């Protein structure tokens, strides 16, 4: 079962995404990050945005993925709520279809600015399921 959870961190937010495989965990951690930014219950699944990322390694892919989504949100105003992700075998590149709609301040309550995803305490692990932990600067 995929999902995300917020764990304690004194100043910032420690976010964990779980998934049956790496793409699933990457999708859930992105949903987790946008649930920190806005009330995703009010976001309709009516548009899509495509994202592709190439990174130096699997850990960097997590950070680059979340930071690219933040960049696209703040420059294009697109608020995604669901992600379909595919990852190359090496875990260094991804293609994603992000489902959501343009941010609308009248309909979408927003919570917090996320400044960036950081490398601090970053973990990508798997045994039965995949688990990604990332600290967000908020």
């Amino acid at each position, binding site marked *: 079962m995929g999902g995300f959870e917020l764990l304690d961190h004194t100043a910032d937010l420690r976010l964990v995404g779980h998934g049956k495989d790496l793409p699933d965990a990457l999708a859930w951690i992105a949903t987790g990050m946008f649930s920190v930014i806005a009330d995703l219950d009010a976001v309709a699944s009516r548009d899509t945005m495509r994202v592709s990322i190439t990174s130096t390694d699997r850990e960097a892919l997590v950070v680059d993925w979340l930071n690219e989504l933040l960049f696209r949100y703040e420059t294009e105003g697109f608020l995604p709520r669901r992600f379909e992700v595919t990852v190359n075998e090496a875990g260094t590149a991804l293609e994603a279809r992000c489902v959501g709609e343009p941010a609308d301040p009248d309909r979408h309550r927003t919570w917090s600015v996320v400044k960036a995803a950081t490398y*601090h305490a970053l973990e990508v692990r798997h045994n039965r399921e995949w688990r990604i932990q990332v600290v967000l*600067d908020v």
Partner: protein
Amino acid sequence: MAGPQNAIGAHGNRNMDWTTVLQKRDGHRWELPQDYKSGMNVPGVVFADDKLLQLIREDPCIEQVANVAFLPGIVGHSLAMPDIHWGYGFPIGGVAATRVDEDGVVSPGGVGFDINCGIRLLRTDLTEAEVRPHLKDLVSTLFREIHTGTGAGGRIRLSASEVDKVLKEGGAWAVGRGLGDPDDLEVTEEGGCMAEADPSAVGDRPKARGGPQIGTLGSGNHFLEVQAVDEILDRAAASTMGLTEPGQVTIMIHCGSRGLGHQVCTDSLRVIEAAGRRYGIELPDRQLASVPVSSPEGGEYLRAMNAAANFAWANRQCIAHWARESFEQVLGRSWEDMGMWQVYDISHNMAKIEDHTVDGKSTRLCVHRKGATRSFPAGHPEVPERYRDIGQPVFVPGDMGRYSFLAVGAPKAMEVSFGSTCHGAGRVESRTRAKKLLKGRDIRQELEREGIIVQAKGWASLAEEASIAYKDVADVVRVSEEAGLCRNVARLRPLGVIKG
């Protein structure tokens, strides 16, 4: 590439008791021995008394002090100010100085994503009694005039060439557009402009992300607060800053370089991570990625960081101007008539090239202050002339339910902390725990019963910033003063707050 050894759980430091490792040097100084971890180039020093140390005795922030000590070319100690808490890479409240002309490095993680986040303070001739009847109106006018929160576009649309002007000129760009008074620049750190800034070192992505956000507050712990002087602790210094009586109204602004700075840091980290590996720099946390200050990548980062710093000063300049306009609208008098002059503007997230005495010799250092305020003493040539006799003003905001402090730089800071002091109260409770602890309570109403009017865009974030989430800033400034990092001048208490 080997996985970085930075997983808190993995190396078991999450619940370790630091009082078994730190060695007490005096009443407000604890040393983290250099042999705590193999690879530390210098020992660490944490400025704290017993009370403050108890609050961080199990916090991973001390591990971060040890990790910063790995930076090549670091001199003196890896320092932690009394408000230290767990950050990413550097601890928040961390100070590290590296040798510029030798092997010293610059680390974007030692500045953080919010480049030149800082505090600006305006004083007024108004009294609390005059303002109190208009407070609700004032807070809602401020909230309308100054955009807050996530994705908030500002009131100004900048063309690409205009963004470059902001990055080059900083606060002067805003003043040149009529958003402020030339005197504001006289009382801004660096005159509101890092001359080394290079707009061409900033890519299209930071400009696209941050350009539209000029003149906005952001969210998290950023705020604009209408305050009253609660108590004056140093009459002469306070009077030099235009504060003479309890009850006198002040305005405090806390924000940074918004998406522009965040993206400069994000993009720089990608470059510096790869380059750092080429230079053979290995560090225990990937977020500390560094390159030599003298390398091309180091120079490029500093030019971009300085440009982002200028954006932050322009940002606070715009906000201060609209704060003055809001007061004019509500009280029907000109800002000059209300004496709304700027006291000072400080940065608390920066890396700066400064001269300090190391082993008896004047040495050029790259001083990283991540959640730490410059604290230059009286007589220092970089302190504006009107404050040359008292020292550089320092602002230490507390949480929105209690109070904030005004201080000045002290001579001992030059000896023990590369001219640095604390920057705030320092969190003790995580955002998630604060929300859990306050579940079902209406923080807005509770503050209003105490006479503090709050308006916020994300009401959920209000609980995250409530008093219980923070150390008592009075303890932080007391220890800072006892350690000789700064000298306290006045205490300010909140009347009205706007937040993201």
